[in-house]
């Protein structure tokens, strides 16, 4: 076969492949990114996932997440008996991580165990106590509970800062706005707290709203 003819055949073949490939690509105008309907107070639509796969937030992820959300010290956010780091030492395995050197555990546990829920609650509660304390001391610089006002006997003073705190908490924790019902539930929780223990109800609400959101399933898993 003539070399020129052979080269022509090859070139035509390449062009055909190009044409065939490009013809499959439909040029569409670029769609704007979908904006989720996440305005604060509006309820999100959700349906059961067909994949249904979640991961547990293990100890190091939990430590990093809490430190970022609450702007608290990674080591100091929870110390058992004021001395022993909760996440890296005391509750490490319960929080889903391995501990080869201290406990001969060479793999992350495949599932939660008897102390996992308690360990998460202790860590989050300690961190929330720390955050609420700092925000109460300096409300104008508050990270979560900014400009929250409390009465002289420790009650919350009705103020837009309450809703804004809840929104800030959800934004920082889950990068989403709280739904209207989530805001309502946390507001109603204050009423219950006050009825049970009026003294320092505002401070307790701050700690426990933080606690209830950051020990929720949405925080424990991702």
């Amino acid at each position, binding site marked *: 076969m003539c070399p020129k003819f052979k080269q022509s055949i090859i070139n035509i073949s390449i062009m055909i492949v190009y044409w065939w490939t490009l013809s499959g690509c439909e040029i569409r105008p670029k769609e704007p990114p979908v904006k989720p309907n996440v305005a604060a107070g509006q309820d999100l*639509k*959700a*349906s*059961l*996932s067909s994949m249904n*796969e*979640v991961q*547990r937030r293990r100890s190091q992820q939990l430590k990093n997440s809490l430190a970022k959300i609450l702007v608290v010290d990674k080591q100091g956010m929870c110390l058992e*008996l*004021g*001395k*022993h780091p909760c996440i890296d*030492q*005391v509750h*490490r*395995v*319960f929080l889903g991580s391995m*501990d080869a*050197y*201290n*406990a*001969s*555990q*060479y793999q992350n546990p495949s*599932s*939660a*165990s*008897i*102390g*996992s*829920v*308690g*360990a998460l609650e*202790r860590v989050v*509660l300690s961190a929330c*106590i720390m955050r609420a*304390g700092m925000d109460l001391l300096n409300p104008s610089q508050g990270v979560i509970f900014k400009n929250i006002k409390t009465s002289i006997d420790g009650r919350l003073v009705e103020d837009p800062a309450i809703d804004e705190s809840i929104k800030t908490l959800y934004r920082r924790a*889950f990068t989403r706005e709280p*739904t209207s*019902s*989530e805001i309502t*539930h*946390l507001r*109603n929780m204050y009423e*219950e*707290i006050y009825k*049970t*223990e009026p003294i320092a109800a505002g401070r*307790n609400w701050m*700690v426990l*709203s933080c*606690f*209830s*959101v950051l*020990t*929720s*399933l*949405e925080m*424990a*898993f991702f």
Partner: protein
Amino acid sequence: MGKNKKRDGLYINDRRDFLTRAGQLLMGSAAYGVTPQFLAGCTNKGSPVSSSAVPADGPLYLKEGKKRKYLFVFSAMGGASINDSFLAMRESESKNYQKLNCFPDRLVTQGEGTDFRAVDLKMETVGPLPFDIETTQSKFLAKYGKEIMVTTLTGNTVAHPVGQARCVNGFEAWNGRTLQEAVAAYYGSDLLIPNVNMATLGFAENGKDPSLPRYALAEQVANAAIFPFGLDGSLGIQGAPKKSLIDIARRVRDDKLDQESPFFKTFGQNPQIREWIERRKKLPEYERLNLINKLNPFANSTRFPFTSFGLEPNTRGDLFRELFKNIGPPGPETDDLQNQALLAYLLVASGLTCSVTFGLGMNVAVDITEPSKKRLWNTPTGFDYSHNAHRGTQALLWQRTLDTIDRLITLLRSTQTAPGETLWDHSLIYIATEFGRDKTKEPNVTEFTSGHNINNGVVMISPLVNGGKVMGGIDPETLLTYGFDPESGVPDPTRTMTDKHIYAGILQALGVETPGANLPLMKSMLKRS
């Protein structure tokens, strides 16, 4: 109970009474040598317990009236050789003694009225590790010989985790259900934490039986000392709101925030999330029982100032510390094996648990309480350090194993379940190990190395087994063990016993029904009435 005071759910006369009784059994527990020498000076006086001793807490009987039984699995990590303990061979008994793992005659004693041997020796090193060893196996044998049973076994693997799993599931003898799961399923339906596992690797593996009730699955506990902290969500945290307020927050979270969250609506059926929700429901129950304090036997200290944080460790802690000298929060003076053994007792005596697994870990542990006399508690890799130094490793870890078990039995014997009965009367301790070690050595050496050998024997200690007996036998010219007739117990050099036989014998000794399992009837392993 007359003058008895209730403390942490258990009754006790007083400290002096307890110690007097325990002391009768212990006969001194001064430490010397390489391990806490609880065995030193102990005598064969039997249980010191009278009807006024320490009654156990919790539900001790099933609804049908059948008495609950308790299984303790001690994980002898790395290959505990039966030739270095109860089936030790004297040099004078074997023509091949120079090539075999035989002991000088003077080191081996015969247990009175039993088939067993004991090795009492002293060594100055464990291979390259410069630690003294002194073993007193004969003390243990004198004390418990009539309740020890050794069953010969020829396993089927020399892979550690595989062998470990098989020695507790009988090589999947019953749908892959482990011994611990079988006991928990049978005796633990009304217990809060029926099955607790503090071991690692293959000993900590769950079984594979899909028909096992969920409550019988093992709760894994990585660190016995700090485990109780995870059993309460807020106690001991400074500045924590009251429990009643915490409960409000939990209710809002569980019933409202979670239920309505887009995350839950999307992933709420995920098995991990369902399990988490179930575990949440149990936490208030642990709190109600005050387990964070009840399971904490440690002393208040500068490093662990429990009382400054509103915690109140078990008020009988000082009594336990008399028996377990080296318990404590994590630290250089703490022997975690003792922590595990004591937690095993507390779980059972508190009526929480009927199956507990604990034992040796893989990590080296050195007691530095006395800097001038450091003691080796655990070799790196446990019994498997026999690859480097067989005799020293086996001596050290058999001593440690028996010493820890001795302390546990002492507590079980001191805990009353009914007039004239103690927890020990209903308990079985199984020293589980994945395989044995090579039988051979170089001539004229006192230390040598060994590989894995599937031929071995395993130890059970219990009033429920055919005590004082070796089931099977040992060939003095090879040190290989051989089997026995399951019905009559007659030794049979032509047969070997399997994991399945051991599995069946243990469950039958504990009275666990095994419908559909087709397990061999191991009548010879049961206590003769």
